[in-house]
């Protein structure tokens, strides 16, 4: 075979592989959208479930997921951002910071069910928060913080050192430089990291399994110490735990979850590309 033929063959193989990798994703999205749209209606989005979840809507699951994601953000954003600022701007390179970094890398690799069991042990049982929105949010936050710290630290480090030096030379304190120059410059990267971290929290089932999720609760939580339904867990329940479940409800729920997660993902990409185009250093 000639070299050109080998090259054409190589490209063909690579193209096929690329299509094979991407095709299932499109297929999944397409099936969920097509079958899900039949189940989506105003009532489906805003009503309580009825008849053992076989009819009615998924309103409490939607609200529950939004509540849990907000609760997670409330805890994980300040802690993650604070940790990132410390690691990037203040920490010296010593055994302590090396240990913290090592821990962050490892935490990001821990299976989410382990976070769920950890949350059950610490928040639900030891701290006596019970299965509640608070316990679930804290558990999801534990899982999200490492993600936020590493992406935010990366964004902070990408800001040229020069700006920090100039700030000092103008009589600014280190913190003034961070607040007035470094943070605003790193904000797009930080925001993207936060959204991606929260996104993962919003779609997880395992961490909320033992810490907050209600099997069937046709009402909204009345206090942060109440249980709540949540989209990923609800999807798991109606797909595997309830016999004779109408497919429209299953796919409708999947579509709502997918739309929620996908729209946040797209938002993150938009922020990232918009600011990257504007950045001039």
């Amino acid at each position, binding site marked *: 075979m000639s070299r050109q033929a080998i090259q054409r063959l190589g490209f063909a193989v690579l193209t096929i592989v690329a299509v094979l990798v991407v095709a299932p994703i499109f297929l999944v999205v397409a099936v969920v959208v097509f079958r899900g749209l039949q189940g989506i209606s105003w009532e489906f989005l805003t009503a309580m479930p009825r008849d053992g979840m076989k009819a009615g809507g998924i309103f409490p699951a939607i609200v529950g997921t939004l509540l849990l994601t907000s609760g997670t953000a409330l805890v994980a954003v300040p802690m993650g951002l604070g940790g990132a600022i410390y690691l990037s701007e203040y920490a010296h390179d010593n055994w302590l910071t090396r240990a913290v970094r090592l821990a962050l890398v490892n935490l990001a690799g821990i299976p989410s069910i382990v976070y769920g069991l950890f949350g059950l042990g610490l928040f639900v049982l030891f701290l006596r928060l019970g299965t509640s929105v608070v316990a679930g949010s804290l558990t999801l936050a534990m899982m999200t913080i490492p993600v936020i710290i590493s992406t935010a630290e990366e964004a902070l480090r990408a800001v040229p050192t*020069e700006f920090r030096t*100039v700030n000092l*030379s*103008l*009589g600014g*304190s280190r913190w003034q430089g961070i607040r*007035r120059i470094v943070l605003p410059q790193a904000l797009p990267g930080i925001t993207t990291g936060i959204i991606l971290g929260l996104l993962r929290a919003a779609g997880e089932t395992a961490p909320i399994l033992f810490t907050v999720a209600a099997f069937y609760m046709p009402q909204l939580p009345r206090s942060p110490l109440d249980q709540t339904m949540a989209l990923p867990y609800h999807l798991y329940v109606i797909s595997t735990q309830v016999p004779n479940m109408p497919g429209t409800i299953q796919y409708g729920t999947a579509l709502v979850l997918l739309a929620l997660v996908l729209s946040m993902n797209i938002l993150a990409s938009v922020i990232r590309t918009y600011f990257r185009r504007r950045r001039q250093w």
Partner: protein
Amino acid sequence: MSLDALDRATMIDVQHVDFFYGTRQALADVSAEITEHRITALIGPSGCGKSTFLRCLNRMNDTIPGARLQGQVLLDGQSIYTPHTDVVSLRRRVGMVFQRPNPFPQSVFDNVAFGPRVVGTDRNIDLSQVVEASLKAVDLWDEVKDNLRQDALRLSLGQQQRLCIARVLAVKPQVILMDEPCSALDPISTLKIEELMRMLEREYTIVIVTHNMQQAARVSDYTGFFWLDAQRSGVLVEFDDTAAIFTRPQDARTEDYITGRFG
């Protein structure tokens, strides 16, 4: 220009300074007197400690791990290397202009207002007045006054460097340190900065590091010549009136350097 040092006070008095990066000695026994309202140029080959010396004067070397200084640096008669020296207020008195124009990625206005804002002692200062005065002092006002909100990075490099000088002036320092401020600029912009230095000299004390001997000869009143000694530490070989350095240097190394025999 008459150069009678006797009627001028010493602004910065550097006494027997040794400077170390970890174990490497970068400056050995450097002493110099920087005269107020005069321009002092520091020349010499690359890596001989000119910039290190400059950064000793506003303690910018503090940020480098392992950096250490022995000796005395007096600003207006007060040591700036005591345990209670307020480094932040020192840097407000001794401003710095860098090699590459480095405005913040913000508007022209915000760049100049940065210093007064972080100082923040006097809440009643009229920021727009400070910005206007600073931009006028660097002869940039007419070029940017119609659009102070424009991004500073849209200016030409020469304008950016003048903006950086204006940013320093807004803090109202006594001394301005310039670390090769023209090395990234074209000849016209360079000339503009040099003219500017002559204007600023009336109100400020200026120390400039330059690779360009013609620039030192053109613009400065005093010149210090740095060289590496046998241990590869920077030494101040000669420090004198610029006219004296360039016409009758006392040290053979200075003469060789300025006549281009090496360096």
